[in-house]
């Protein structure tokens, strides 16, 4: 149990930032794993909201899609999707939103729309989905991304979702209600926005990761926070809970589906 992967470390680092009782707008993949890990460890009363309309859901296994039946079965209730966005997210009732992206820039702005020109893309990505409004209205957001010079970039090909815009208070001058990204969780450590400049700086490193590794994986001249924290390695309890969750999930998703007809 003492060996762990960077993927596991990312999930656990994200989970640790969540507190008991916080209301999370959960995306699929690592964010869903992190939120459910938090619920199964230190934050049993965390409230998980999925954009499919499930409020306060407590799945036993991770959903593959954002609207798996397990989410509905275990939710406090299911509301129509328009209400999730209008009455819960836009109304400022979400504490933490998770975001992924293909590109992040130094002010935490995100691209999940397109690589290359919008009208003649080299790679068309899935698009905004809920991200633009999560980025605007969640009280804070966490961005989760594997770091390379192609993902942490000097300039976005397209701005899908707002971080701190051009920085230096630009976001605070808009009508966005949420506070923007409080952490960009990568596979070497965590970037956080610097007060005043709103620029992402290196502030936390995983065990075994180095400043050099971080600089090599970031496409802009990465600056350092005054103090770089060394994140604690995953505990055996965290690893066990996470691996058990993934194992349950794999087993559940491998079950063949029985159709009424066949």
């Amino acid at each position, binding site marked *: 149990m003492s060996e762990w992967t960077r993927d596991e470390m990312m999930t656990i680092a994200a989970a640790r930032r969540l507190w008991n009782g916080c209301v999370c707008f959960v995306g699929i993949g690592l964010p869903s794993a992190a939120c459910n890990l938090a619920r199964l460890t230190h934050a049993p009363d965390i409230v998980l909201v999925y954009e499919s309309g499930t409020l306060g859901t407590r799945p036993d296994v991770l959903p593959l899609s954002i609207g798996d039946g397990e989410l509905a079965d275990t939710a406090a209730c299911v509301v129509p*999707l328009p209400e999730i966005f209008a009455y819960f997210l836009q109304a400022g009732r979400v504490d933490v939103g998770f975001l992924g992206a293909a590109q992040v820039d130094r002010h935490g702005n995100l691209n999940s729309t397109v690589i290359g020109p919008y009208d003649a893309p080299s790679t068309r990505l899935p*698009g905004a989905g809920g991200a633009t409004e999560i980025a605007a209205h969640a009280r804070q957001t966490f961005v989760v991304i594997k770091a390379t010079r192609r993902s942490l970039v000097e300039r976005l090909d397209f*701005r899908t979702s707002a971080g701190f815009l051009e920085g230096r208070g630009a976001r605070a001058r808009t009508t966005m209600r949420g506070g923007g990204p409080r952490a960009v969780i990568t596979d070497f450590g965590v970037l956080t926005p610097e007060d005043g400049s709103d620029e992402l700086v290196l502030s936390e490193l995983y065990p075994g990761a180095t400043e050099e590794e971080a600089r090599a994986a970031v496409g802009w001249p990465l600056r350092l926070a005054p103090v770089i924290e060394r994140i604690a390695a995953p505990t055996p309890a965290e690893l066990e809970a996470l691996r058990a969750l993934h194992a349950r999930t794999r087993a559940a998703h491998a079950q063949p589906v029985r159709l009424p007809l066949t």
Partner: protein
Amino acid sequence: MSGVGKVVSLGEAVARHVADGMTVALEGFTHLIPFAAAHEILRQRRRELHLVRMTPDLVYDQMIGMGCARRLTFSWGGNPGVGSAHRLRDAIEHGWPLPLEIDEHTHAGVAAAYCAGAARLPFGLLRGYLGTDLVQVNPRIRSVECPYTGERIATVPALNPDVTFLHAQRADRRGNVEIVGILGAQREAGLAAKALVVTVEELVDELPPAMNGIVLPHWVVSAVALCPGGAYPSYVQGRYGRDNAFYQRWDAVSRDRGTFRSWMERHVLGAPDHASFLASLGASA
């Protein structure tokens, strides 16, 4: 407007309600995706459709890959939890098999547009599209000034599809439809449409009073077609689960144009109906 004639075959419902060039929405957010209806539209060789859907995942990957769409209104296009919608990408990136105009939004924007459509308002309001380049590339995203505070609030034009297709658990002979589970924006998409066609797992004589349950009353439903398994490979709460393995396998099927076309020819176009489609997968999917 009694229920007489509302319960029809899926083939008849599509023939009656879908014409080339129409604006067509197939809704269902992960849950209750009307795959059988999509396949029947393909079998009837409809063309030049304006497809509308928040998440054009596999169902529209198939329709777009078969060349039946000229335009797409959407907010997220991928294979949920798996990766790309390859046929959608190929249409946008390379115009294959046909160029595809896109009208791109966010989930909150499409939701507001359906709600406006359902209420027969000409536009919907949201505090949305803030700080995004979408407003630069989509001229349909505009704004109005609040007459009380002066704040500018984003607007989207109402969505009123010519026809919306939904899938649901049950309907009765008069055309009342019962839905249980995750709703997405399907009720709003259905109420926004000029015609609403619903495929169902089961027909019953009469649905019981539902109190706060979700019912589409018969007088807003144009046609109901019995179609067990009609949401497969998505799922139906309380009936069958999502075939996550199918979604994963689709990545390989859809990555290559030829493989995709053969698969569709064999399983969809080569099958006379949804039951045959399901049976064909049992052998080889």
